[in-house]
């Protein structure tokens, strides 16, 4: 089986400062991995580099064994859902936020039906009436679940989660864990939460932009 993500001796510098140096790892379909380390150790930069947001200084990033290039970046982005600490909904209300990506040419022909919208809300244990709620009246944890719902509606298979668990209460966390128990979904996350770390099969330890340790939990 081929890896879905592979970093091969990747180094990244921004503003003449090295943020990642000589990072190599591979992640296979269905694996759940977490990056941990002190703040500033480069965890989020790994996620952003995969999405083409930081130019590579050396090495190469592969997605489904295709190198990350200006030509392939849109495909990589279209297969990937990135969810940050405070996701941006980008629309007036929740329904528009969920339908936002379907305005773009890449997804225009896959607009979900009302039934599909309701199904995904239910899966994330969000109430139906949230659809008409104003985006300004949505909490951080709800925003993350809506961003996740958007990823599911788009049929994304790879989820990059940046400190997602910090805004979630115990109940929401369980819902998120359940969603990602799907063996089709691959997760690369950044987290400190011990419960999350325990759930992830692979733990990457980062220190000052270097990958210092890889731990595999028993269940992987």
């Amino acid at each position, binding site marked *: 089986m081929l890896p879905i993500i592979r970093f091969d001796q990747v180094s990244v510098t921004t503003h003449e400062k090295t943020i990642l140096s000589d990072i190599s790892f591979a992640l296979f379909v269905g694996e759940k991995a977490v990056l941990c380390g002190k703040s500033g150790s480069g965890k989020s930069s790994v996620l952003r580099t995969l*999405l*083409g*947001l930081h*130019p590579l200084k050396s090495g190469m990033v592969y997605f489904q064994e295709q190198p990350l290039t*200006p030509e392939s*970046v*849109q495909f990589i*982005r*279209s297969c*990937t*859902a*990135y969810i*940050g600490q405070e*996701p*941006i909904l*980008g629309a007036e209300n929740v329904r528009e936020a969920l339908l*936002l*990506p379907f*305005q*773009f*040419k*890449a*997804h225009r022909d896959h607009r979900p039906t009302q039934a599909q919208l309701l199904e995904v809300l239910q899966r994330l244990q969000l109430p139906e009436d949230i659809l008409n709620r104003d985006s300004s009246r949505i909490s951080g944890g709800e925003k993350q679940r809506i961003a996740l719902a*958007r990823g599911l509606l*788009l049929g994304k298979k790879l989820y990059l989660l940046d400190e997602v668990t910090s805004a979630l209460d115990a109940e929401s966390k369980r819902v998120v864990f359940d969603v990602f128990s799907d063996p089709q979904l691959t997760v690369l996350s950044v987290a400190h939460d011990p419960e999350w770390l325990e759930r992830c099969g692979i733990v990457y330890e980062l220190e000052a932009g270097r990958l210092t340790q890889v731990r595999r939990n028993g269940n992987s």
Partner: protein
Amino acid sequence: METLDIKLPQMALLYGLCLLPWLLLWLIGLRLSRDIGIGILRMSIQLALVGIYLKALFDLNNPWLNGLWILVMLLVADLSILRRAGLKARYFVLATFVAIAFSIVLSTAYLVVLVIQPPHFYDARYIVPLAGMILGNCLQGNVIALERFYSALRKNENEYTTFLMLGASRWEAVRPYFREAIKAAINPTIAGMATMGLVSLPGMMTGQILGGSEPWLAVKYQIAIMICIFTSSTVASIINLKLSLTIAFNAFDVLREEVIKKP
């Protein structure tokens, strides 16, 4: 009807009027003598030089010289737009030049060749002041368009990136900021047209009336110039912003920090 000349002694008398505001400012404790002096002196010297230049331009009325004058105005406007919009000229000088040159030449030629139809289309008396007025207003619009767009993009970097991650192309992701910037750029012109003549008499019309034109003629020229200003501002801002999109981003659709001037 000739406009009455202002002779030298009367000109001196005119400067004397400045003594009144100068005295009042001095009385309320504002010591602005130096600034006022420099302001008046600079205005006088600069306008005298323009007077000499325009006089020569009109006397010679050479199509190449007129064209050169417009080219110089375009270059100065180009650099001024980029400086005021906070963008580095090194990257955008050509894009801005193409945008303003195209729109100014288009609207001035339309006005002069098709509408006014002077005996010689290159007549300095028509193309120099008209192109200058259109360009001056076009400059404002382009500064607003570029400045608004790039500051909105930097302020909403996370939102822009979110759009990209949701499958938007670069154009789809910048479109909301693009529309807002163009709206801000052309709104003053639209609002200006809507209140024209109510709040104040437009400068060009006043000038023509003083120059001895019939009010009706002055009105028609004012309408003509406003339509050209509106057209060229809109066309230039859209072309300029569109061209800048091909320069300001890297191949991965990320805004290149080096193209923006550090404040």
